[in-house]
């Protein structure tokens, strides 16, 4: 029997995971899985199921607000979900045939470049030079506007790099199918690097997408009795509460602070991937 203090600490960690996840467009697995395995002594196999549930909880709670506020772009999400989901299926199918180490290394390098790109970004998204609208993006109505509460004005943005974005998202899906790490971080990096979206739109749209990639696996886990209500229920509850809080913080957060928060997380994922690439699993 775990003592009450440890359980409470664990629950607080789930809330923090939801909070950070909803701000940064991540699933929160970076926090949920170590909390379960290291703090609460849950074995890795069971923690992975809880991690998938956490991804969906973050996605649903965060995207409920971001979609209403047009911060998450549902057309971009739909277009790119084709890439992320098919990449994930390919990753699961080809797991035995793909050189996972080489791919980890390549993605580690991509993450390092994305850190450079995010760090270089101006104080505000408005400081970025406007991008040339892509014809397909125009045809699909991907360009958007959102209201930036912090700046008190409506921001319009164009979408470019549709092909590169689709490719990077397919690879991000492939990585999550193969290695199961950092799929949210890769999506944010891809949206930022390839499609040059405002950072808040990148993280919010990533939040909307991650739930869909995780849903197939979650149902598979559920149907095969691999989800444990007594473990996954409290995790999901904590993450839902945290993610909901995160959306309130997001409205008041300047993009500069979002960058400062995002950088160490991207750095952590980059180091993990480079490590896996060089040393192996």
């Amino acid at each position: 029997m775990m003592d009450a203090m440890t359980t409470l600490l664990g629950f607080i960690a789930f809330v923090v995971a939801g909070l950070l996840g909803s701000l940064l467009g991540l699933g929160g697995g970076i926090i949920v899985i170590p909390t379960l395995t290291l703090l609460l002594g849950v074995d890795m196999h069971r923690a992975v199921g809880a991690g998938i549930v956490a991804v969906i909880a973050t996605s649903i709670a965060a995207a409920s607000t971001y979609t209403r506020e047009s911060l998450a772009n549902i057309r971009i999400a739909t277009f790119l979900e084709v890439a992320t989901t098919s990449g994930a299926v390919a990753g699961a199918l080809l797991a035995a045939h793909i050189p996972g180490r080489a791919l980890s290394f390549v993605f580690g390098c991509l993450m390092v470049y994305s850190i450079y790109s995010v760090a270089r970004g101006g104080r505000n998204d408005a400081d970025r030079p406007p991008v040339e609208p892509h014809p397909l993006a125009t045809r699909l109505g991907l360009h958007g506007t959102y209201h930036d509460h912090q700046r008190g004005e409506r921001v319009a943005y164009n979408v470019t790099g549709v092909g590169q974005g689709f490719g990077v998202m397919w690879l991000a899906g492939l990585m999550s199918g193969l290695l199961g790490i950092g799929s949210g971080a890769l999506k944010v990096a891809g949206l930022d690097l390839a499609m040059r979206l405002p950072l808040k739109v990148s993280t919010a749209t990533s939040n909307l997408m991650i739930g869909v990639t995780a849903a197939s696996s979650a149902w598979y886990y559920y149907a095969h009795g691999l989800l444990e209500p007594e473990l996954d229920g409290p995790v999901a509850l904590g993450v839902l509460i945290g993610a909901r809080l995160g959306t309130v913080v997001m409205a008041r957060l300047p993009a500069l602070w979002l960058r400062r928060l995002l950088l160490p997380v991207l750095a952590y994922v980059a180091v993990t991937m480079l490590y896996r690439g060089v040393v192996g699993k």
Partner: protein
Amino acid sequence: MTDETPPTGAAVAVERWVGNFLRVATYVAATLLGLGVVTNLASAMPDLRDAAWLAPLDRGLPLLRSGLVVLLAAPVLRVMLAGVLFLRNRERATALLCLVVLAIMATGYILGATHR
């Protein structure tokens, strides 16, 4: 094929509908899970462990399970809802993409875990 660029009014509607649906799903899931966690904790307390009125709640497991099902169903239903709304907006290409996403999700489910 008609022009795919949606009028601004229609574009907002998809976002609002999907956002509201996700909000309802969030609150329903959180309520079920919250009640489930409370029941689960109460059932573990020495004073209540043998309470007859608590027994039918089965340590809150049905509540926790329903909360998880609502959570797991939300992303799938969200894509379906968006697909229907895009179709109504005559954004046929985007509606088709929703259908493709659903098909790939189904494939992923049949093939097993696609995201660990």
